[in-house]
């Protein structure tokens, strides 16, 4: 009896000790239709190079990254994790989790493949640790044109026209502005308020934590703009996810939504320019952008290293990036893409980047600054602060980082 018990125990211990092996998987949260299609493009190239594709999918970035951290500490990390590059590149590198990609970068001449700004988002202390694959432009205004036509409103091109259109739409019985109940959705909308109040350089200064810009009257104006559009949202917004919110515009229950390019997939059955439209903030010639890509995770395992070499080669293939970007409705991060490859919203993003000004989006900031911004925006939006109090709260939060 006792003997049998110990045999079972030893067998269990041996089983547990034996489960450490290289997983060579990619951890990501690209689950929306366009995102999954983009991932399939990278997967195809990776497999054609001889890699064996394995993935771990999560609903949110934080889940995918939390799993990566835990698995890193347990000695069995994924080979790469998808996410916004910039602030988080430094987060991973400072934590000692980043793989050094210098050798692959040198043999592939990565420094020539990217503009220096984009390359910087994948480097830490001059060393390549993450690979940018897309440039996401975030400040989009999606409009259901059918709803505007029914209310007799033309597409607004200035902030004042936009505000004027809101009351007409409200009287017509539709939700003028669709917004959900999560801090990042509120902060994505707030981008447009900052741009209405001060334009590209003001936005860039605010996002770099410049206390003069944050404490300025323009910031008060940004919060006042935000309070204005709050009057034109529906009461079902509490706790609502972005897909449900986007669906209000798709289905004609709401007129406008401020959202990133990932919302494009929802309008697949409608004709852009006729039934709906995607426009970068119409009241400022600015594009707020960030690099999206993969952080490579340090591993001593040779299977991991070989998988990383192949995956890095697949990610830095221009043709693959262009195809994946087209599938996701965004732009490739590498230089040299043929503009004819893009269509619809992506063309507009390329035009704006060539003719207008580019500012770094808040999602590429360090987690401290990003949190201060999101905390204040959500507190203002859901509370009863005056615009001046909103400005003061943001100033206090940034000073407190």
């Amino acid at each position: 009896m006792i003997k049998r018990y110990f045999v079972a125990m030893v067998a269990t211990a041996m089983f547990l000790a034996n489960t450490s092996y290289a997983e060579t998987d990619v951890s990501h949260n690209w689950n929306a239709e366009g995102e999954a299609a983009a991932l399939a493009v990278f997967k195809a190239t990776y497999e054609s190079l001889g890699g064996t594709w394995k993935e771990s999918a999560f609903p949110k970035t934080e889940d995918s990254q939390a799993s990566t951290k835990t698995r890193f500490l347990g000695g069995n990390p994924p080979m790469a994790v998808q996410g916004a590059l910039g602030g988080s590149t430094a987060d991973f590198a400072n934590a000692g989790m980043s793989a050094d990609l210098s050798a692959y970068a040198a043999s592939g001449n990565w420094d020539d493949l990217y503009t220096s700004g984009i390359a910087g988002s994948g480097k830490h202390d001059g060393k390549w640790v993450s690979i940018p694959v897309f440039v996401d432009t975030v400040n989009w205004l999606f409009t259901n044109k059918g709803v505007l036509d029914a209310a007799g409103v033309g597409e607004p091109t200035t902030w004042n026209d936009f505000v004027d259109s809101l009351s007409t739409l409200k009287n017509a019985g539709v939700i003028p502005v669709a917004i959900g109940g999560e801090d990042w959705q509120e902060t994505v909308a707030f981008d447009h308020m900052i741009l209405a109040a001060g334009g590209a350089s003001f936005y860039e200064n605010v996002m770099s934590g410049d206390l003069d810009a944050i404490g300025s009257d323009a910031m008060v104006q940004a919060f006042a703009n935000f309070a204005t559009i709050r009057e034109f949202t529906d009461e079902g917004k509490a706790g609502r996810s972005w897909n449900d919110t986007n669906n209000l515009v798709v289905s004609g229950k709401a007129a406008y939504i401020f959202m990133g390019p990932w919302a494009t997939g929802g309008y697949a059955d409608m004709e852009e320019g006729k039934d709906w439209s995607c426009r970068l903030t119409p009241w400022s010639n600015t594009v707020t952008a960030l690099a999206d890509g993969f952080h490579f995770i340090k591993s001593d395992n040779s299977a991991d290293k070989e998988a990383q070499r192949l995956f890095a080669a697949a990610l830095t293939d221009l043709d693959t990036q262009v195809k994946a970007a087209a599938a996701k409705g965004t732009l490739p991060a590498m230089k040299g893409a043929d503009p004819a490859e893009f269509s619809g919203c992506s063309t507009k993003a390329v035009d704006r980047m060539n003719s207008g000004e580019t500012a770094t989006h808040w999602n590429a900031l360090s987690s401290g600054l990003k949190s201060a911004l999101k905390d204040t925006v959500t507190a203002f939006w859901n509370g009863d602060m005056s615009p001046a109090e909103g400005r003061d709260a943001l100033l206090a939060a940034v000073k407190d980082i």
Partner: protein
Amino acid sequence: MKGYLQQRFVIAAALAPTVLIAVYFIWGFGAATAYLSFTDSGFLPSTKLIGLLHYQKLFSSARWWNTYGNMFIFGGIYLFGCLGIGITVAAMLDQRSHSAIVYRTIYLYPIAMSLIITGLAWQWVLSPTTGLQHFVRSLGFENFGLNILGSSEFAIYAVAGAAVWHSTGLVIVLFLAGMKGIDTDLWRAARIDRIPIWRTYTSIVLPQLRSVLMTAIVLLSFNVVRSFDIVVALTKGGPGRASELPALYAYDFYFVRGNIGRGSAAAVIMVVSIMVIVLPYLLYELRSRKQ
């Protein structure tokens, strides 16, 4: 004698893994969390001690105080709501013993649901655009307003209400079982003395069920500490951070903000606060039972 020793050994050996796992995963991890709250752990855990810095930042944060206050609003309503409704319904069922089984099944049913499903179901009911408000308005009462989830003041009460709905059944079943164990002679004596039924319960039956009460309070207070899923499903902590509970706050700092130290400090304060309230009561009850 040899058989007896062998039997004892087998029992000890069989229980040893459970005990070791409990000590390691509950007390070991608890101690690790407390330790991390004194270190500069950020994106990954670190062992460099920095004293009370995380606690200072925690206590100077308006968001934390709102969240911490919510725990007491939620905990108060949850504990007293579950116990009050649970004991009353149990007494009513105790009086009609022939139908008790049917009702007991009905009332116990919610506890078989996970908290995330409970939260989701109530989210559907309370959502102003699709739930109860929409339904009543569609009946013709255009001015009817019920937007608890969108109200910064009241959202936390919606969370507490849904949690009470979920867990009251547990209290009913515990107390009903206890009441069935009361000596029927006591009831006869009370009836002869013409003592009202409610008085019999408050003065005779309930004082005998103190250990049942203790069990219920312990089970419920640990539900208060770990409340996470119901908030996520019902309000996501919103509007803004209005209905956030400490577990959600800790999660945000652990996994979204890469600030493991601050998240640990929040977790420690959360558990210690509940302990400070519940432990003296437990000690008092255990001591008076020994005497």
